[in-house]
């Protein structure tokens, strides 16, 4: 910015700045109306009785219920389970995609982008068709004699996890793939020419240089899975009850707005905790990398 000596010009610049600021007001207003206000309303509602009086009874009721703690455990299990499978399936795929010519990689990326652009309801329906007792997979398994009885693949934790991994994998893959694409191929060549085996190069060169992408991917997995609703609602068959499902049931079946709000706040707290965990882990990892580089 140049320093404007003339006060009239400076006033003009200030006026222009105010004008530009005002351009974002309509968008900020609607975000306030449809995102910030609702969250504040949940906080307020959590302290209200059905009659509208102030109370902490909702908190006592929700926090003393075993169902709440079971829901918290299920939420965390689903999130970490999804993350584990995303890392397990996504990292090798990202590595393979990053190691081929961009043309081929783009073509293969279409396979990743197709599900990303398919409605979650379509995909959930697809999994129902595949995983049911009379579904495609069970028919193939029993038909080929691999199993005598159809396996319970859906309307349980397994089915929910499969659906969630399928939803998150493309979103996890994108940042990891981007990070691996950015790795200087000369580093890999240097490592190879110094005699490192493929496994050593992957462990000491490629993976450390992709941690940024893996971190972003993992954070995305957490942000999405912590409040996942559709997949457990359909593929869980009433047996998988993370916080999101408990919120819905408390709201629609029991009409208990106060308790549903407390559960919502628990979800926010859980998100904040995991977010903090990520920040700490990232800082520790950055320090570690720095340390080994100088060792």
């Amino acid at each position: 910015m140049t320093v404007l000596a003339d006060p009239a010009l400076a006033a003009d610049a200030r006026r222009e700045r105010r004008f530009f600021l005002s351009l974002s007001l309509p968008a900020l207003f609607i975000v306030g109306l449809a995102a910030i206000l609702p969250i504040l309303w949940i906080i307020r509602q959590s302290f209200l009785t059905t009659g509208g009086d102030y109370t902490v009874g909702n908190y006592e009721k929700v926090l003393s219920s075993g169902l709440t703690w079971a829901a918290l455990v299920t939420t965390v299990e689903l999130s970490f389970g999804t993350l584990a499978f995303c890392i397990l399936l996504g990292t090798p795929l990202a590595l393979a995609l990053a190691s081929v010519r961009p043309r081929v990689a783009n073509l293969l990326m279409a396979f990743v982008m197709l599900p990303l652009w398919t409605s979650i309801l379509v995909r959930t329906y697809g999994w129902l068709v595949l995983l049911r007792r009379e579904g495609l997979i069970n028919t193939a398994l029993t038909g080929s004699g691999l199993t005598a009885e159809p396996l319970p693949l859906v309307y349980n934790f397994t089915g929910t996890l499969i659906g969630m991994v399928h939803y998150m994998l493309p979103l996890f893959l994108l940042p990891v793939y981007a990070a691996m694409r950015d790795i200087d191929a000369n580093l890999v060549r240097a490592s190879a020419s110094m005699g490192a085996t493929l496994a050593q190069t992957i462990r000491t060169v490629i993976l450390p240089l992709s941690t940024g992408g893996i971190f972003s991917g993992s954070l995305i997995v957490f942000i999405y899975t912590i409040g996942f609703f559709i997949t457990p609602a359909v593929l869980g068959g009433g047996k998988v009850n993370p916080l999101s499902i408990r919120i819905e049931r408390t709201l629609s079946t029991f009409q208990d707005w106060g308790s549903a709000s407390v559960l919502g706040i628990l979800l926010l707290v859980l998100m904040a905790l995991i977010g903090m965990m990520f920040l700490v882990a990232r800082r520790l990892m950055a320090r570690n990398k720095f340390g080994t580089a100088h060792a």
Partner: protein
Amino acid sequence: MLEAYPDNRLARILLWSFCALVLAFLMLPTLVVVPLSFSASDLLEFPPRAYSLRWYGNFFGSATWMAGLRTSLILGTLTAMVAVPLALLACISINRLGGRTALAIQGALLTPSIVPGILLAIGLFFVLAAQRLVGTLFGVLVGHVVLAIPVACIVLLPALARFDWNQVQAARSLGANWARAIGGIIVPQLQISLLSATLMAFLTSLDESVISIFVASGQNSTLPKLMFLSLRDQIDPTIAAISTLWTVIVLVAVLIVSLRQKS
């Protein structure tokens, strides 16, 4: 990247067979739906023994499904019409202000995409209930608009960064007011990006289900909400027909966006 290891044929074969399985896993649920939608049978048999269009007939013949489709299309169009202009103005603001202020605005606009959908949905439900607006199109619309604004911004911000702001200053110094400068200079030059942003905003609304499930009802139920309700009760092949149509619509829209961006 791995060309430095041309001898590790076994590792390569293992890696690629693993990847083929993962890619199959990704494609399978979308692909399996297509043949089912053309099945002639009530059962979800695979592969279908006889083919027909009866499930498509079922969909187009049902008043409920048609109302859902209409609501979803109207809602998507309205969402795009509201979200894209708001996003364009906000992006101009972010682009011109720069620094911390711009980051703060960007952060605020991104909040809705970080907050879990279920929380937005019940919060919005409470707010709308207090105003007796639950079940109205308006309620779902504001919910979809806040989700579409960040999506539109992702498309518009890089386009604005490439835009030569001197042109606006020239127009301004020649006496054009701001409305004229934005409408006559910025909008025509960002045409392609604006079209992409519009389609993306439309798709965001079309694909959104959680807010619709909680806030929309009756005549204003969206197609995803109706699909969700029917998936919970029974799995009838009509859903396969809807799913196939849905995926084709979305793919065409995505193809238009990506082809436009390349040209």
